[in-house]
């Protein structure tokens, strides 16, 4: 048997391809499974009979999905932010929301947001909650 002892063995180089394969698979997994949506929660305290609020209730009725509301018979739009702030500032009490037929949940949430941003301290979903 002949042994070729004179040839210098070059060290075997580690190929990067299997590493890239694994990293790509990990990347795909994290890209597909991770979510970036930010969920928030809006508390809806369901009134019980024991908790009666003595303050005056100002009825705010949401008429349609475009954001038309009526407060004490006066109709205005949620887009008119300044007028809404004036109307809110002129009244003290609990703003009770009532909703017309066919209004979507998004419009209701938008109304609650607009009332809070316009300075209403207490917003009640009394007309919506059971």
């Amino acid at each position, binding site marked *: 048997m002949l042994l070729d002892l004179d040839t210098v063995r070059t060290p075997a*180089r580690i*190929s*990067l*391809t299997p*590493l*890239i394969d694994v*990293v*790509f698979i*990990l*990347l795909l997994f*994290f*890209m597909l*499974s*991770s*979510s*970036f*949506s*930010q*969920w*928030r*929660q*809006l*508390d*809806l*305290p*369901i009134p*019980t009979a024991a908790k009666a609020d003595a303050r005056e209730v100002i009825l705010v009725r949401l008429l349609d999905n475009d954001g038309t509301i009526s407060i004490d018979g006066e109709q205005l739009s949620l887009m008119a932010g300044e007028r809404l702030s004036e109307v809110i500032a002129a009244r003290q009490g609990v703003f009770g929301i009532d*909703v017309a*037929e*066919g*209004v*979507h*949940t*998004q*419009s*209701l*949430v*938008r109304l*609650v*947001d*607009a009332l809070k*941003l316009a300075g209403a301290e207490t917003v009640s979903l009394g007309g*919506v*909650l*059971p």
Partner: protein
Amino acid sequence: MIIDTAKIKRRDNGDDNVIPLINIVFLMLIFFMVSGQVSKSDVVKTEPPKSVNDTRLSEQDSLDIIVTAEGVAYIGDVPVQIGDITSAIEKKLIEYVDLDNLSVRIKVDAELPVTELRSLLRQVRDAGLVRVSLITRLSERAS
């Protein structure tokens, strides 16, 4: 000075060209690992209403009710009839010990009529639960 160009060429093998690629891929991998949240996805896709409200989801025990825009309801992963939610919740309550701290998280589609939401809330109250919250998506502005 004599430069042995043959030696330099020999050291240059095919892997050197992919090192920038690996750098980018590693950066993307680290970005998605750190910033994304791996969570269980819902049984149906819903688009909850947008709101500027900034209360984060509470960590306590909760019962999740999902209702799509078409009025199809699920409690957790189990489909339920929209009219039978009270009895479905009562069956589900057996699994929970601390009922005082149990909250109900309602994830409804933004397009669901409020009348449907009201009947849902009435059924939740009839089941004896009063800690109810609506899940919203964070929006940048109030529009």
